[in-house]
């Protein structure tokens, strides 16, 4: 139990996917201009990441490995992720048209969110078991969500700031993300696995 908890905390804070591993930066920059959107994106990504890591584990362990087709992992995982994302998109479209509109292009783009594929591949790389894979996927998603939501709240404030012209928009967002990354360095060594 403690192991799983540590793994979770470790993935959320210490090895944060966005600020430490620098994965999933595209939606991190793209959907962070409003908190509302960011929260929606977080839920969608959390769902996709958890399900994708679960499915990819199953596909890998029960189909690819027995058949000796490990070289197909990347291709297969992309397939899995694409399906999960597409499915999520349909559900979101049906249940919350507003969120669907807010997320816009970034919803289908979860497919290409490298964090999702990253989770699936890292699960294999780190030889996680079934439960660990799910926890890892979930943890990564929570970490992503945490910084995304904080970042969006900051950006809402920055939108009204008197930023020098050349730094307006993405530039200052990048700098902010950099400073956030600095702050997250503080968690280094927090969990020794």
């Amino acid at each position: 139990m403690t192991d799983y908890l540590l793994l979770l905390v470790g993935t959320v804070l210490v090895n944060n996917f966005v600020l430490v591993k620098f994965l999933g930066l595209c939606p991190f920059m793209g959907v962070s201009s409003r908190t509302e959107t960011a929260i929606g994106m977080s839920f969608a990504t959390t769902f996709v990441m958890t399900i994708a890591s679960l499915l990819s584990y199953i596909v890998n362990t029960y189909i690819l490995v027995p058949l000796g087709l490990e070289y197909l992992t990347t291709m297969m995982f992309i397939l899995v992720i694409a399906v999960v994302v597409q499915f999520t998109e349909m559900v979101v479209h049906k249940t919350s048209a507003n969120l669907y509109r807010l997320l816009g292009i970034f919803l289908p783009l979860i497919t290409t969110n490298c964090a999702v594929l990253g989770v699936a591949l890292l699960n294999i790389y780190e030889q996680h078991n079934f439960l660990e894979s799910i926890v890892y996927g979930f943890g990564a998603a929570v970490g992503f969500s945490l910084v995304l939501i904080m970042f969006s709240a900051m950006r809402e404030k920055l939108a009204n700031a008197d930023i020098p012209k050349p730094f307006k928009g993405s530039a200052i967002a990048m700098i902010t993300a950099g400073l956030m990354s600095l702050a997250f360095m503080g968690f280094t060594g927090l969990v020794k696995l």
Partner: protein
Amino acid sequence: MGSVIERIKRGHFWTFHGGIHPPEQKFLTTDKPIRAVSIPEQLILPLQQHIGISADLQVNVGDKVLKGQALTKSTHPMAVPIHAPTSGTITAIKNAVIAHPSGLSELCLFITPDGEDRWRERKICTDLAKLTDNDLIDKISSAGISGMGGAGFPTQVKVSTHEKIKFLIINAAECEPYITADDLLIREHSPSILDGINILDSILSPEHILIGIEDNKPEAIKVLQQTTANNEKIQVCVLPTKYPTGGEKQLIQILTGQEVPAGVLPSSLGIVMQNIATCFAIADAVINDIPLIKRVVTVSGQALQKPQNVWSLLGTPVGYLLEQCGYPNKDKKHIIMGGPMMGYSLPTDQVPVVKTTNCILAPSEIEISSPYSTGTREVECIRCGQCSDVCPAQLLPQELQWSAKAKDHQQLNKLNLFDCIECGACAYVCPSQIPLVNYYRIAKSEIRQQTQLDIKAEHAKVRFEARKERLTRDKIAREEKQRAAAAARKARMNSGTTEAKSEMSAVAQALARVKAKKAQTKVQAPINQETPTANVAQKSQVAAAIARAKAKKLAAQQNIAVEKTILVDQNTDTSKPAVDKKAKIAAAVAKAKARKFADKAHVKNVNVDDKPIDDKVEQVSNTEKTLVDKKAKIAAAVAKAKARKLAEQQAKLAATPSNEITNEKPKSEST
């Protein structure tokens, strides 16, 4: 509810969030009695002096009015009449700068007093018990009483509430610095005030009457306590001094511990609040039949030699009062109507005292250095949060400020901008010296305008859709009709009756005629320009019209009297309507042409075009010419009348293009 009263009797009150303690500066005027000032040379009475709509004008320029005579009247509950403050003559009814922060002009009555100060007939009421509640409300309504604390809400609306009233709260807090008008009024006229409270009591029959007064007015408190000692129902509540205790919502919270829910009137909580000066006015109106024509105004500030409270007639220009109180003639004037926290600076000293004017402030530069007039001292917000600490509405002023600057209306609404009472506490404490209240006001007016636009857009959309639907409906109906007609025709043709045959032949004939005509026109085309009789007739008609228009213009210039045209009118009785219309069309066409030409400055072309027409006009018989002349005159008269109307309308719509039109007339003449 008992507990509230028990608490109050123990001297325990609730408190509201925040609040500030600005320097009170009441000592300037508090030790001097209310002075009566003489009648000024001219009184300026804005038609609207309260929140709501203005009533209908009852007098004209030149009318003599008596003191207390109603000048406007209306049956609308939100319209409050105004009365002549003294006897005199109405010298003008025109736009003048009103007592409003914008310094914009609105319709005002100008009265030149005759100095006699003659009253209209008055009915002094000796026995209040004889009057029913409705009589009382009628009297309040016809006396033109609106809230005298600052907002100016019509009093009769407040007192004719149907809710069950638990508390009648009399607001004597007077929390703004400098102002002592209510203080002095209480000290000098407390019996009348008590009468007013009793009148309100009989109308509203509340369970309790609470008088809220700040503890910085010891003499007034003593007087009030003595006057109300015999009345068990009335509680004089002495409140700790804190700005803005006198705010309606704040005072309710202090006295009853209840918050007025957003967007709801206090009466829904069973609470009605009246200003103490309003009580005095009510007593005066009901008992002495004196409408609201004067009020106590605190004229204060260290720039004055003799700051004092004065009895001022409504309509007295501010400059006159300041003069009376010894205002030095300076180059730079800073005059504030209202207190230093919520008042507004005036762009001219000709602004009149109105029903809501409780103070006129002329501060010296040391007192109030007006940092916001230049705006240089404003620095960025450091989010210190002092503003939210003092905000009586528990808003987040600094976040509101951010959103107001970014014009994020959605966020502003989310932050409850419209709950801001504009008390100014936030801007008062702001270390960055940001004029916060001004940002909110701008944002509020923008949001209001946006809402208006949205409503309008929605309305326009509905109308557009309706129109589109109507057009398609018409189209379908037309098509349907055509189809039906065609079908009917077809049916008849097929039926083979003689009637049908004749119709068919008629159709055939018509077709043949059309063909023939076409052929004819083809043949005639080259010679068409010569003299096809029909065409000539038409042309000459047009030409005549144009000529008429010209004649009309000439007539207008020569300023021919209207009587003459009337004479002509009788002569040409039968032909009048047709002529009238023709001339009108002609005039319009001519004018339009002239304008177009003038614009393009193609003088030569005009000559070429006009000459043949003019020539042809010559051919028109003499008799007709005179007739034409007359017709033109009529047209001119009509045009003149219309121009007047137009001018009136445009005056309403402000910016007028009429200059443009009148300027172009001579131009067209020159062509």
